[in-house]
């Protein structure tokens, strides 16, 4: 079943969804980068402990 909205309301909804999606994408990207950083740090630590 399709619900009708005025074009202005449809656009508002689209903009909200787009912003939400962009925020979620940015959040996911940040989480990914943080994980990579953490992994890199862990790797360096491991290497240091090996060389010690």
């Amino acid at each position, binding site marked *: *079943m*399709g*619900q*009708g*909205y*005025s*074009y202005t309301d*449809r*656009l508002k*909804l*689209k*903009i909200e969804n*787009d912003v939400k999606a962009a925020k979620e994408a940015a959040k996911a990207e940040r989480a990914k980068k943080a994980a990579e950083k953490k992994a890199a740090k862990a790797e360096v630590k491991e290497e240091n402990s090996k060389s010690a």
Partner: protein
Amino acid sequence: MAINEEIFLGSGATLSFVPEVDFYIKKTTATGNVTQIIFHSDQTHFRLIKDLYVGCTIDRYDASNVLQSTHTITGNSGNSTAAATIDFTPQAESTAADDYFVIRGYAAPCPAPAQDTSIATLNADNSLGLVESATFPNIEVEMRQLNLALGGTRNFTHQFKGIETASGGNINLISNQGHWLYYALGKCSTTTVPAGIRSAATSGGFSAPFDVASADQATFLHEDTAHIEDGPIFYRTIGTEIVPPLMPTDTTVGQLISLSALSVSNFESNFITYIINEQDTAKLPSFALEQSISKLESTNTYKTDIDSAATESHTFVRVARGNRINTLTLTANENEEVKMTMDLNTSAVTELDIDEEMYARRNQEVENFSNRKGAQSGHLEPFFFTDGTITIYNQQLLKITNLTLTINNNIQDKRFVGMQDRGIKQGIPAQRTYELSFTALVTDDKLFREFIRSDEETTYDITLQFDKSNGEQIKLEFENYFTNAANWTIPEDKGPVTVEATVMPRGLKTNGCTIITHAALMG
């Protein structure tokens, strides 16, 4: 080859329906302060009819879909321009490369992809329905004759033509579906398309907003989760091109459905349900009428300007645009079909420019018109008087001999500075009124008691319903009403006593208009 001595005959005259819906434009990447846009190469399958969109409103949005500015169209290129241009005022400032434009639907007839790859045409292969009579709006020109305080003779010293007014448009038809109520009331709040007559739009080959996969060609697309209530509601596909292009809110292929052809057997008893509501803003939907008078030559039957002459002697075309329904009268008389009569408020009647090539009625034969092709016998069958029921004051009146419902939008003509053409006006909807009058044979004095009652009936709604045997329906529910006339007529011939009553509802009930029909409402 034309025989110019042939006269125009009524046999070649057609009045066809052209939807007026918001039209998305992808422009070229031009930036800065602009007063003209050019269609992007992705959109050059649309050629425009010269200056048909003058006076229309065009909005500019940025890539994030935020409205940036609003303008009035002052001119548009004609058929000879491959990448169409639109001029507007005031200038759009600091336009970005990926800004897009939308022509608002009012007074903007929806174009269709060019025929023969380069001949402009409108989305005009749509029948008005079972028309009994139709009057194309006439243009009246105000004559101004002045003496300028300069004597010498008793004749006028000077004369000129004043404003032009298009008026008198009227459509009188037998109702086989109820879409006209959408134009009278204003918005489509809900659509339901049963599984039997739909399929998911094909994603492979789909390219928003202009193209669909070949599996979805020559059909209708619909955004099935949320649609724009005043159109576009159903998008046509002509070949694999979407008409009009999908609006930016409707481009997710996973939410689009494709409507089956009218000829499929499931369409015998599965229909689209539309819930129509009252529109209380100034955005009353409109449509255009394309009038073509062809000499029915064997080749290029509906083409204009075949011989590049200064006068058109092959197919005379005019387009009445911005038609809003001022009054709609639904009549069900004893022994008749249900009829609808609509008086139109027209924004302008636009003629073709000299040497403007186009195909009238999208160069289609009548049986190929979008709402006739494959239609089954039940689809084109009218609603009959006998298919109706009316319930009022919690009673179903069984012996109604005729009834008339009038919806009046009281549209007011307004002309604005900057409209660019003295022949263009805008119809602004104002006070809306309803009136239901009927003649009935009665068994008690209920109607008279209701007539003398001074308070409004707020408990029981008025329900007016017409059904076809195949399942198609028109249903209207009104609330808050008075009976303001109930005349009891005693006949001279000792026949049945009749009551002629008039009921004035204040409004349509929320979700009070249901239309169940085979027809796809473009908006």
